[in-house]
């Protein structure tokens, strides 16, 4: 599903965010990416969505070599991936419903379909009764769930979640991780970026460890060892 072949990313003048990363993620896999702040985790996600271009190496997503993807094709790629951003990127001037609907509007889905699907997804993340609120009127956990709903609503084959439990208490964190696991059970490939040691140890799935841009360990049923 995802191939990174000898990926490097250098931010000029001299910040090396990623160095010679080789990674293969199979369909329906659940992979946690861990590592210290500044290790290059978000950069890796950005390369997968063509937000950043790799300085070296090849990137294949869903069988599509996106190493030299053109501006025109970028939207096509992004519509096949769901992303929960570290800073959420919810639109402040739109309600929760509109924010989630927006991901479908961008893909040209009909209004009747949107009105049908969006409440379903909001129900799954437990925000059905808050769908007319604006992001400022939500708690941190609710914002993160709204961001997940938006990342899922177009049924992507791949879900990339960058710190989706960033500032949450353990109960909220558990809810969100359970949600991700459930999504994964339904057949979506999930890439989870996290700092949270307990999370990684609890889910008992594959763990990839980055250290200053280098991939230093990659284990099935790994543990967060730091």
């Amino acid at each position, binding site marked *: 599903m995802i191939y990174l072949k000898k990926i490097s990313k250098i931010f000029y003048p001299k910040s090396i965010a990623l160095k010679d990363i080789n990674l293969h993620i199979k369909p329906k896999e659940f992979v946690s990416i861990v590592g210290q702040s500044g290790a290059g985790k978000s950069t890796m996600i950005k390369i997968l969505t063509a937000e950043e271009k790799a300085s070296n190496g090849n990137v294949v997503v869903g069988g599509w070599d996106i190493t030299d993807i053109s501006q025109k094709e970028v939207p096509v790629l*992004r*519509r096949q991936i769901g*992303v929960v951003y570290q800073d959420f990127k919810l639109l402040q001037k739109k309600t929760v419903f509109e924010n989630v609907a*927006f*991901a479908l509007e961008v*893909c040209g889905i*009909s209004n009747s379909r949107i009105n049908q699907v969006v409440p379903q997804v909001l129900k799954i993340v437990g925000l059905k009764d808050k769908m007319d609120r604006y992001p400022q009127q939500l708690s941190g956990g609710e914002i993160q769930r709204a961001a997940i709903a938006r990342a899922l609503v177009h049924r992507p084959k791949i879900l990339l979640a960058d710190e989706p439990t960033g500032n949450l208490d353990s109960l909220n964190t558990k809810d969100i991780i359970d949600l991700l696991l459930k999504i994964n059970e339904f057949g979506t490939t999930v890439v989870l970026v996290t700092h949270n040691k307990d999370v990684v140890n609890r889910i008992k799935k594959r763990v990839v460890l980055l250290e200053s841009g280098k991939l230093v360990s990659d284990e099935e049923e790994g543990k967060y060892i730091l």
Partner: protein
Amino acid sequence: MLSSGSRVLKFAFQDFFRNFWLSFVTLTILVLALFSINLLIIFNLVAQASIGAIEDKVNVSVYFKPEITQDQVLAVSKNLQGLNEVKDVTYISSEQALENFKTRHQDNPEILQSIDELGKNPLGASLIVTAKVTDQYTKIMQYLAEPHYDNLIESKNFDDHRLVISRISNLMSKVNTGVVAVALVFVIIALLIIFNAIRMAIYTHKEEIMAMKLLGATNWFVQAPFLLEGIIFAILSVLLTIIIVYPLVGVIQPYVSSLLETNFNLVTYFTNNFFTIFGLELLGAILINLISSYWAVSKYVRV
């Protein structure tokens, strides 16, 4: 495509109303810029009209000797009318001249009495010549100075007007270049202000534009609502400008006509040239809005 078109429309209007304060400020700036351009147009029209009014009062009076016959005078008149520079020649007979003289001095019995005592009309016929353009009077004067007119013409009063005429031509060319220069500076300032206002308005959408792009929106899908909003702004601002300019012109008009004593009418001018004036302003506003929106959004769609 149909649903994406209606979505563009929806987003454009949603943005307009949800950012009402910003929309209001942008619109105000547009209206102020357009209004100032119209003020400039009004000023220019009034200036032209006043120059025209003064010019109309400038002429050369050619007084003929009393013994010259009407036929001779009319022959000169015909020659003058044949000149390229001459706009109009009015003939005043000696009887008419005497009549005018008497009415002008009707309060002065001494003068009237001395005229009566003379027993015959001391005044000759005269011609009032107006030129097409004020600086052509010198040419007309040169023509009238030819020797064969010497024994026909008693006097010409152009000299009295020479200074006024040269001042007017001077003033006119100065006003013209002044107005053009002011207009140019003004249009540039207006363009920069509008450009900046739109750039600011779109800057507040920076995050939103980038988020749209990350969700897989095409550049067109991101751009279109802003371009449409630019067109809506342009149309609204021109409408508001029309609503402001007409009453203003209506208020100014009586002063202009009483001051200049002409039948030049600002309101009629604006009505007759409605589509030229406001059509061009609309076109200009749409163009500048589209260009600034496109440029401002382009900076953020490259995510």
